[in-house]
């Protein structure tokens, strides 16, 4: 990973992303009640998976709950 040409002006990059995130949030907020239930179930399922995640190799600090 040598000679990386870093972006000189990141302002536009982040503006585009923030706008996209707002659009996504607005879309999710406007879905039907049944779709909201599906999304909530999915988030709960992802949270469970994340909770069961296990750090196998760390270059700094371990997951606090595993100390």
């Amino acid at each position, binding site marked *: *990973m040598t000679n990386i040409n*870093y972006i000189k002006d990141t302002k536009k990059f982040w503006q585009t*992303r923030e*706008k*996209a995130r707002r*659009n996504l949030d607005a879309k*999710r907020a406007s879905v039907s009640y049944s779709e909201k239930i599906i999304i909530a179930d999915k988030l709960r399922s992802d949270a469970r*998976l994340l909770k069961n995640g296990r750090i196998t190799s760390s270059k*700094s600090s371990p997951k606090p709950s595993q100390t």
Partner: protein
Amino acid sequence: MSFQGALVALNELKEKGVIEDYAIGGGYAVMFYDIPITTYDLDVLAVLPSEDAFHKLYEYFRERGAKIEDVYIFIKDMPVQFLPNYISPLFNSAIEEANEIEFEGVFSKIVSIEYLIVLLLTAFRLKDKIRILRLFDKANKNVLIDIIKRFDNDQHQLHKRYKKVLADS
């Protein structure tokens, strides 16, 4: 939508050389280190050699019929935002120094809690400040301060923001 399915797809991207490496960041990393939050998208910090490779990444998914909306690529129905390493040296190091992790048999990488805090300091929206406060006690302060010192600049004002969060806590 499947987070685990998205991880499998990301690992395939790495195997195929579409991306060189990646690490999970954003809300999903916050959920890993702290508590569940409402987040709809998966932020993936990705090592890409150039802006051209970034465009090719979108092309790769477009050719396979993936849904693309704004900056989001829908992988296994999950909106994924790729944040290339060439945004800044901070992003590059966050991937290089990410933790290796296993989620029920699927291997991946996730930014360390200290890098996660510093990435949140760069964004510094209200929700980021709240997340920083929740993560702060779990972080290694020496590692955190070292990262802040290494990557502080006028644009991000990391140290100034760090002090402000401490003062507000």
